[in-house]
């Protein structure tokens, strides 16, 4: 069973969104996650993870879409790195089987000083 900070069980969908958000924010290339698109969030059990949309995909896995505000870096490398980070984090938490495709949408690019 997956539990949240308060030892409350959370859904796999929410857990994956939460892990993806943490993995993205740990990346230096990501300035922040963008909650502006109304669909760019995952809500479950009263908790809302902004900047990550988690949708059930065919086959039982969950497809994640990360809406990121990036620093000026290679977008190709950014996409690859984010996918790898999210996948590693999901596998480390026993959710590798539940993780489907990881989409990355760069909504804006900010300078090096852009905060989170």
């Amino acid at each position, binding site marked *: 069973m997956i539990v949240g900070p308060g030892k409350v069980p959370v859904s796999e969908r929410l857990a994956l969104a939460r892990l993806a958000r943490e993995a993205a924010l740990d990346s230096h290339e990501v300035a922040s996650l963008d909650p502006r698109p109304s669909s760019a969030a995952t809500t479950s059990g009263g908790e809302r993870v902004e900047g990550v949309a988690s949708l059930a995909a065919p086959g039982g896995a969950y497809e994640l879409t990360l809406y990121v505000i990036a620093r000026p870096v290679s*977008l*190709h490398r950014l*996409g690859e790195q984010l996918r790898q980070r999210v996948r590693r984090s999901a596998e480390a938490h026993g959710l590798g089987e539940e993780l489907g*495709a*990881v*989409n*990355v949408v*760069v*909504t804006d*690019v900010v300078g090096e000083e852009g905060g989170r």
Partner: protein
Amino acid sequence: MVGLRALSRLVTFVLLAALALAGAAVAVCSLGSEGTLSLPWLADQLQLPAAREEVRDFLHTLETPGPIALGAAAAGLAAMAAGVLLLIGALWPRRQRLAVLERGESGTLGATRRALSRAAASLVDGVHGISARRVRLRPRRRGVGARLDLRATRPETLPGDEAKRRAGRALEPLSTSFALRPHVRTRAASRVM
């Protein structure tokens, strides 16, 4: 196209609101057969019998050949053209806000026009003497890639072809990694007195 789309949305909203109000009025007045809140009463309230008397002669004039009939035909054609334009504004497919840069089994990589434009501008601004003035991105309606139109200023001492070549080379991280087709136009920066 943006203005046409906004106009068609406004007209649609106003017409739908008017239609809803008219429908509600007719529905309420359909409940009674005579007296207040009946269809004859509603016609009286809207002064339809008086309006019919007023336009009766005009309608007769319209039916006969003459300048008024020609004017009415022209107005009808203009109304049809306006309707076609509004239909185009409402039905023309919107250009994608997102440019899909990569698509694979592991997922897709996309970027908004704003993000890609900024990335392109920052790449070009890194070239000595060249400054991006305007960047427009046109994502493909289907598939991967986009067209990137960039206008930039260059020093008067730098030939236009050389400036285009340098700007194109600066954009290579975007254009080679993704299916972006850059179109660069430069003009010499005017001298500040």
